[in-house]
């Protein structure tokens, strides 16, 4: 075989190897984290952002972060707190730039009219709250998480969390 052919073959092999390495996308730990926690991550993001599409983007990017860090992550520890902290940081630090780069969802949520009306009312009321207050009251009152768990996810203290829940309830009462 002539040298050019050898080089060409090597080049093709190298290119294909790199491509296959990039596109190799199976990791059972990641799949399990996706199946177990997507709903929690989405609802956390929804509580934080008060925006359905933004929450979907945020949940998606939190998982992309997880995928990128899967080789260095300690999978023996619960992964949900990691995902939530990642989502919160993405939301607070650079969500705007991030959201620009993410594809829009394939379809809007298929709400019927009554649900759509109710969601608009809820979103309007929730809009009176800060992201911290909204997340605090949703996660403790609706999702049933412990204050300790929520404090970790929100990066705040137990006392500040309880104060946020209290403020949220007061605001919602007149929202």
């Amino acid at each position, binding site marked *: 075989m*002539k*040298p*050019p052919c*050898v*080089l*060409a073959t090597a*080049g*093709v092999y*190298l*290119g294909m190897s*790199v*491509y296959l390495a*990039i596109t190799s*996308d199976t990791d059972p730990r990641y*799949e399990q984290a*996706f*199946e177990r926690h*997507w*709903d929690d991550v*989405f*609802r956390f993001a*929804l*509580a934080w*952002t008060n*925006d*359905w*599409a*933004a929450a979907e983007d945020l949940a*998606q990017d939190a*998982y*992309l972060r997880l*995928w*990128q860090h899967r080789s260095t992550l300690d999978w023996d520890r619960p992964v949900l707190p990691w995902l939530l902290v990642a989502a919160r940081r993405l939301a607070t630090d650079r969500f*705007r730039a991030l*959201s620009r*780069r*993410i*594809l*829009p*969802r*394939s379809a*809007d949520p298929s*709400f019927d*009219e009554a*649900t*759509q*009306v*109710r*969601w*608009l*009312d*809820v979103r*309007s*009321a*929730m809009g009176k709250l800060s992201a911290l207050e909204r997340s605090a*009251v*949703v996660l403790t009152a609706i999702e049933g998480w412990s204050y300790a768990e929520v404090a970790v996810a929100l990066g705040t203290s137990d006392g500040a969390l309880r104060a946020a829940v209290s403020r949220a309830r007061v605001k*919602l*009462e007149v*929202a």
Partner: protein
Amino acid sequence: MARSRTDEVLEGWKMVAHIASRPAVAPRPRTRRTSGPSGLVPAAAVVLLLVVALSVRGLGQGPTPSQPAVGATPSMAASPVATANPSPSLSPTDMPTPSVAPGGSSTSADITTAKAAVDQYSADLVRGDYAAAWAMLGPEYRANAAPFASWSSERSQFFKSVAGRYTVVVSPPGVAPITDWLSSTFGAPINLAHAVLVEVDYPALAGNNAGYNLYIVNRTASGLAIYVVR
């Protein structure tokens, strides 16, 4: 005992939020339009190109690129680069067709009128003329979005936060191409030859994920129609 407003809101949130369904497939980086690992694809293509080009030159022994006999080889090598270079962040399957630019293949006249339309739409909302703004929306959007009363109520709340300040940007940079937003137009027949993607930024909400809106302005036989896509 009467239910409190707080309980009502929280129950509503729970009811709606739990409708959400998990995507069928877990997110993968290669579906993103960003750099990162997918950026290695163009790198691999470049390596492939260099090696193949080198092999074609045969270390000075083979035919030169100008010779007709090797015409096919460079084109094969160039193919992946041509796919990757226009936008390294795009995976090959995500590439828009060449006939559709990110902001559509619209003319300067299309852009001018689209910008004016969105400016007018935004001004109506700032002014509180929701009926006028609603009338500018595409019929498919109006039929599928919330009823006018709910929509105007929600918009009025939002525009209180906007504080009357906004900026209109046509074909905004860093945003997915217009073809990627078509799924949010409720099946409206978007005329990509004239449609324009327009962003409205709200400085009062800068840094907030609600700090901007994206619209597709579609030109139809009966005039312009605006679709809120984000």
